[in-house]
């Protein structure tokens, strides 16, 4: 039991003001893209011509509605900013009631804007990007499905509702990664993503079950109100199980391997799902469950460790990849590691985790779309060794990408600076070791991003034959510009500490951490580290010609990084190979032992019958003999009974 003395700030209770006015339209935010998906997927070929417009319109309408709702929320008092809309009772079993409720509060409001906003831009971009794909309509259907599911995830007021969205985005991710499913690699990557996510779902399932067993309900309102009463063991258990779930969805160690493969999907998918929104769901889950995590030091420590490991792993992997999308994917892992780390810091870090999540959503989507634009011009080649000198050929892409680059590096005043610095600062305040990890990560980030920029835009032309790079059409560059603007200006959210104040009612108050050194010095240190990373990249990559084929004689570290730090190899050796062998053995066991027992009994009886059958020789006289013998026995038995 957590005593009140040891915990000055109890986590806030999730409020539930009933919806009224404009907020009663909350359900429409989800319904619009869901309807779009339904029309596109069920309507079939009939919707081919206008399907993409419908999908874009649905998401854009959702975005407009989100904006309206957001301003509605802004206009309210702090206490009334947590709005609950009851849609219907989902299911009931004994005392367990799960309602289909939507919770619109400061946290989900931000997510709504991110999802629908970035989502709309990516829809627009996809109109151009997927123009020549004969299954474009279906692509947009899936995208709408994803947006709807993601909105369910962030709006649900119950863990089961979160689970619904959680799996919904998993499904959409599966469908979109495997969108080009005629490619075996894409199909395999899609399956891998889903299965690994399912491993994480074990955590969510059991976590939800443990929440029910502990609190008798799974709604945020009830759990947050009662969380301070729960035992430490239960809280830690829930925390760790939810962390497992977050690891699956957010590609954190040890469930990180699917994200790199997920780059088989079309680039807008990578931007929307595997950079900006879905992969950050784990962070959302932890922050949303602050009323659990704030009360359990042990689980938070685990979160921090996972975050640190992943942020370094992702960064290292990003350094060695020649595939532009995989390099960005490694970066995504790393950045989510930052967010998870921040979330693990407790009330001090929740707001910064979300803040970084938002800025990362802007600049990483920007860069992924930029990469998509590059690929568009390079005949879908993803190998950076075949790029070079694209700065001139694609000026808009370069410019927008450059802003994203500066943002991720954390160069002031771009968005990343504000969010990342805060995380590193808070980490140092919490624990120097954690802070150092975060700091090193920033340096490595600077290295691989600079490497990526240099290989892509600078240097000499290393283009393949027949490739004529060109700038992408307007429909693609306009979203790029919009995202670049957001990447540049995202930091404004923290003006006057707005985002912390905004989120505090949700995530809880915290005391200001006091660093040993002034914040400005800290920022300078970080900038120096970043600059060092850039310099190293310049010396290692920028100054030398880049071979068109990746050199094979490289250090073990590079080899390890290229092999994703042996994540797949580990899974293969520890899970898949024994699994396949085990299933083979089990199949043999089933046919020989289990079924063998049944069939064996049958065989024994059949053999016995084959022998007994011979008694039935067809000779009437034999039968008569048997009859007589039987009669004798009967007579003897009668005699025995009567005279015995």
């Amino acid at each position: 039991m957590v005593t009140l003395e040891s915990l000055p700030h109890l986590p806030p209770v999730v409020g539930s003001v009933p919806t009224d006015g404009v907020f009663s339209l909350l359900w429409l935010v989800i319904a619009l893209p869901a309807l779009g998906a339904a029309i596109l997927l069920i309507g079939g070929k009939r919707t081919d011509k206008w399907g993409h417009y419908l999908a874009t319109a649905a998401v854009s309408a959702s975005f407009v509605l989100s904006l309206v709702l957001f301003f509605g929320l802004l206009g309210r008092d702090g206490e009334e900013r947590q709005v609950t809309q009851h849609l219907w009772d989902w299911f009931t079993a004994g005392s367990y009631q799960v309602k289909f409720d939507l919770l619109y509060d400061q946290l989900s409001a931000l997510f709504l804007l991110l999802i629908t906003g970035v989502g709309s831009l990516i829809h627009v971009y996809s109109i151009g990007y997927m123009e020549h794909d004969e299954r474009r309509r279906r692509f947009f259907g899936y995208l709408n499905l994803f947006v709807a599911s993601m909105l369910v995830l962030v709006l649900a007021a119950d863990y089961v509702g979160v689970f619904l969205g959680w799996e919904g985005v998993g499904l959409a991710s599966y469908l979109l990664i495997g969108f080009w499913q005629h490619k075996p690699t894409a199909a395999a990557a899609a399956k891998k993503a889903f299965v690994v996510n399912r491993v994480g779902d074990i955590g969510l399932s059991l976590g939800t079950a443990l929440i029910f067993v502990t609190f008798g309900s799974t709604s945020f309102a009830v759990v947050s109100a009662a969380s301070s009463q729960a035992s430490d063991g239960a809280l830690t258990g829930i925390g760790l199980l939810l962390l497992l779930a977050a690891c699956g969805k957010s590609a954190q160690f040890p469930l990180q391997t699917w994200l790199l493969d997920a780059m088989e999907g079309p680039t807008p998918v990578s931007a929307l799902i595997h950079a900006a929104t879905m992969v950050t769901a784990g962070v959302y889950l932890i922050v949303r469950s602050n009323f659990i995590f704030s009360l359990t030091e042990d689980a938070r420590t685990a979160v921090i460790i996972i975050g640190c490991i992943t942020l370094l792993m992702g960064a290292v992997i990003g350094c060695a990849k020649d595939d532009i999308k995989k390099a960005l994917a490694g970066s995504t892992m790393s950045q989510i590691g930052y967010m998870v780390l921040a979330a693990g810091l407790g009330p001090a870090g929740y707001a910064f985790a979300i803040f970084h999540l938002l800025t990362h959503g802007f600049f990483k989507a920007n860069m992924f779309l930029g990469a998509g634009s590059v690929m568009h011009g390079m005949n879908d080649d993803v190998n950076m060794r075949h790029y070079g000198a694209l700065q001139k050929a694609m000026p808009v892409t370069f410019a927008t990408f450059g802003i994203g680059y500066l943002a991720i590096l954390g160069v002031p005043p771009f968005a990343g600076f504000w969010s990342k610095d805060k995380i590193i600062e808070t980490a140092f305040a919490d624990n120097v070791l954690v802070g150092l990890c975060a700091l090193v990560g920033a340096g490595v980030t600077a290295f691989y991003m600079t490497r990526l920029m240099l290989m892509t835009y600078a240097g000499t032309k290393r283009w393949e034959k027949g490739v004529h790079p060109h700038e992408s059409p307007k429909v693609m560059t306009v979203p790029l510009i919009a995202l670049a603007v957001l990447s540049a200006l995202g930091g404004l959210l923290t003006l006057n500490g707005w985002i912390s104040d905004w989120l505090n009612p949700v995530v809880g108050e915290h005391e200001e951490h006091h660093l040993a050194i002034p914040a400005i010095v800290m920022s300078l240190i970080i900038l120096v580290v970043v600059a060092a990373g850039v310099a190293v990249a310049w010396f290692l990559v920028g100054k030398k010609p880049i071979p068109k084929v990746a050199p094979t004689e490289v250090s073990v570290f590079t080899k390890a990084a290229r092999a994703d730090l042996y994540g797949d190899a580990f899974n293969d050796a520890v899970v898949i190979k024994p699994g396949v062998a085990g299933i083979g053995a089990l199949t043999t066991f089933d046919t020989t032992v289990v079924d063998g027992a049944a069939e064996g009994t049958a065989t024994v009886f059949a053999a016995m019958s084959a022998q007994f059958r011979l008694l039935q020789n067809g000779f009437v006289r034999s039968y008569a003999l048997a009859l007589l013998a039987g009669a004798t026995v009967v007579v003897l038995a009668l005699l025995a009974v009567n005279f015995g």
Partner: protein
Amino acid sequence: MVAFWILAPIMVAAALGMLVVRKAVHAALLLAVVMMSLAVLYLALDAPFLFAVQIIVYTGAILMLFLFVVMLVGVDASDSVVETIRGHRFFTIVVGLAFGITLVLGIGQVSFGTAIGLDEANGEGNIPAIAKILFTRYVFAFEVTSALLITAALGAMVLAHRERLTPKPTQADLAAQRMRDYAEKGTHLGPLPPPGVFARHNSVDTPALLPDGTAAEASISRVLAARGTVKSVPEISEEIHELNEGGEES
């Protein structure tokens, strides 16, 4: 009781004989012996009506029917003594004896007491007494037996009736068939030769002799050939020889 002690051994002997005789006719005759003896025993047991019925129905009708069928089927009516089912005869005797001994021993355990006798029941004569019961209490069963008998008769007729599957060949058909056989297989066209005729006995069982002195197989009935009662040619020739020699001597 005298009749019993005389007849019982005879009956058992005759019954045992049925087990061993090879020809069905002999078995039938032995059965007749058993049945006649039984009839006499019935008389001794105060059942004169059944005595008569036993003689008339069983011995008279049923056994005659048997003999009739034996005559029809009689071509290979004799049994082989070799047992074809392995171990059957041994087990039959063991089980049969066991059964018989069990029965006899079992009966030996029971005391039947003194017989009441039928003097009272047969007071107004056996036949009227039976008739009274038969036509009162058992009249329904009796009527049912009539149905049974009719059904049996019909059944026998149906079973014994030979279904003609092809139309009966006419004279012309037969002639044509014979010509065809001659053309295709060289079958003898004319009538079959008559059997050899000898003054000494009815000689349908003796084949006629062909000009070269061999027997004409076609001249005797196939049934006789199957029964093996045909006089063989050597036999005949020997007889003829004997006759000739005897003639010469005399």
